């Protein structure tokens, strides 16, 4: 199964299991979304549970909040994460704060799905990774799976989570990442990272599509004598701090890879967390290999992305510091 199929499977299973779950968004109905993630759901569940909306992201999230207040469990789709900004106010000012400002009396649990990241020649407005701008805001959980197994398990966990979850789907590997996915019900817990490559010299933190670049770089690095431990964060916030710190205490070195712009990205937070907690263990400056502090380019997107050839020298530098 690929990621698209795994996410589709999770949606279908949960919609069968829980009649409160509804999917809404632009073009999610009959055509099954731009990436076909919701394909077939409209046929099975009809247009009262798989709903094509007007072209307004603020309206999608705003009305989904109302649906959730009434007791439904909406799973809105934002067609590309780049289009989430018109809904930024509804997400950060309303969705994130509702439970808190109402003393826990009102909640609007939902999972906001959106494809993120570059690598499909989408240019400025079809390639961004906006996680940091949501993690900075209290009250949201943020998830980003890197493979079909996690995608299904995390989505099922997210839909059952009592808090609002942003579920970012790395579109570059929608079809490229394939793997075994159990047919039945299972969850991958929100908040748990996975050590996908054990190693002793450098801890590499990555997620989504860039995980594969980190792994590729790690494979090359080992030939140059640097044995990386690669951790797939899976949940970006609240992050699995224990797994991270445990690894860095062992390796004494840390490197973060992400597609989003470098400045004020999640990488800065991860490095700061590590510096605060494992300072005495650190044997080299923490390092970042990130997207650039420029808009996301079209013709030069492979220059922008933190691909293996950029990660490798940073690993070696960190390992040999």
């Amino acid at each position, binding site marked *: 199964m690929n990621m698209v199929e795994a996410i589709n499977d999770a949606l279908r299973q949960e919609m069968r299991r829980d009649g409160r779950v509804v999917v809404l968004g632009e073009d999610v109905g009959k055509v099954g979304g731009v990436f076909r993630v919701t394909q077939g759901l409209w046929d099975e569940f009809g247009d009262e549970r798989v709903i094509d909306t007007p072209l307004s992201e603020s*309206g999608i999230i705003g009305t989904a909040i109302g649906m959730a207040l009434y007791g439904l469990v909406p799973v809105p789709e934002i067609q590309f994460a780049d289009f989430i900004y018109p809904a930024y106010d*509804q997400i950060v000012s309303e969705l994130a704060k509702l439970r808190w400002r109402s*003393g*826990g009396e009102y909640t609007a649990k939902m999972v906001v799905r959106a494809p993120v990241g570059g690598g499909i020649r989408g240019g400025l407005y079809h390639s961004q990774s906006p996680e940091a701008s949501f993690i900075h805001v*209290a009250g949201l959980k943020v998830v980003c799976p890197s493979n079909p197994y996690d995608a299904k398990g995390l989505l099922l966990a997210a839909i059952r989570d009592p808090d609002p979850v942003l579920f970012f789907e790395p579109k570059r590997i929608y079809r490229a990442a394939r793997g075994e996915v159990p047919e039945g019900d299972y969850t991958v817990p929100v908040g748990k990272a996975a050590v996908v490559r054990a190693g002793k010299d450098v801890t590499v933190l990555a997620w989504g599509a860039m995980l594969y670049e980190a792994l590729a770089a790690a494979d090359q690095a080992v030939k140059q004598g640097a044995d990386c431990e690669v951790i797939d964060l899976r949940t970006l916030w609240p992050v699995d701090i224990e797994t991270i710190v445990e690894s860095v205490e062992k390796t004494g070195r840390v490197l973060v890879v992400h597609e989003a712009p470098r400045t004020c990205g999640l990488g800065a937070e991860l490095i700061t967390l590590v510096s605060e907690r494992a300072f005495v263990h650190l044997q080299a400056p923490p390092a970042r290999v990130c997207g650039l502090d420029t808009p996301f380019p079209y013709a030069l997107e492979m220059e922008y992305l933190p691909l293996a050839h950029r990660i490798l020298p940073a690993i070696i530098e960190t390992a040999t510091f």
Partner: protein
Amino acid sequence: MQSTPPATASRDDGSVDPAQGREVSGELALALYEQMVVARLLDERVIALQRTGRVVQHSSALGEEAAIVGAAAALGDEDWVFTGAREVAAALWRGMPLVAYAHHVYGTTLDAACGRNAPDPPFWKAARVASVSPLVGTQIPHAVGVAWAARLRKRDVAVLVYFGDGATSSGDFHAGLNFAGVTRAPVIALCRNNGWAASTPASRQTGSGGFAAKAVAYGLRGVTVDGGDVLSVLRVVREARGRAAAGEGGTLVEAVTEPLREGEVSAPSERDPLERMRRHLEARGLWGAEYAGRLSAEVAADVDAALAEAAAAEVPGRDTLFDDVYAELPWHLREQRERLRAAAAGAGT
């Protein structure tokens, strides 16, 4: 440039036509009046507290009580209400206790919102009065979402959402009402047009002339009503509620109000909605000096007792900050709570 003259049951002297009003029982007419009296006095008291600095922020409804109470009174128990900042009386009408509102004003431990929000609007879950932020317009799609969900669930539940003329410029007014039009959600969007958004006149808010006219853009019904006339507002919103029940979709009601400036309250004008309703009751033989005296004494006692109780209550403790950010406390908030405790202990507080 209203498309239609506002619906009103008022006579030339401004009072509400008793003939018109007979569709409303004496009991209901008195209840509406009394709710407006409570709202008026509550506003006056809280404004006074604001002057002393004891209350930081308050959004009063002076002169706009009829639009607020009349609309709320048209709903059923199962219906939902989303207010803007000024529609406290709608929550009270639906059963939020005065003292609960007072705790909200002071942000005490007994505030439903745990003192987390600056005053107004309050919410009251038992009566389906939703939690609304002071951000102008954001509640409109929420209200539409509730109404839409109820429609999907085939329940006869309608949703009333209040907002001001300024809010019609917000993107969320557009998003909300557009979704309402497409989904035929049973929503009643009540625009309290008091002519101003802070210092900005309605003429700089829109080129449309009237606000009800905007309904056309969404395929909703639009109606303008004299917002100083509680019985007309009640009637118009009841009609909208009927359309909602009949599956005919949403209505945008523009209630034209004339807010009183704070100095004007002690000298009630002919146009004051309380005075207009008073004369209506008088014409129906429901109002007399004895009743008036008893009512104002009772209301003052209730309001003052509520405010006094809340004024004496405690503000929430430090640890409560961390609750309800998530359903369960995650590690980073646990740490921040510990650190805050330690710093406070160190500082001896």
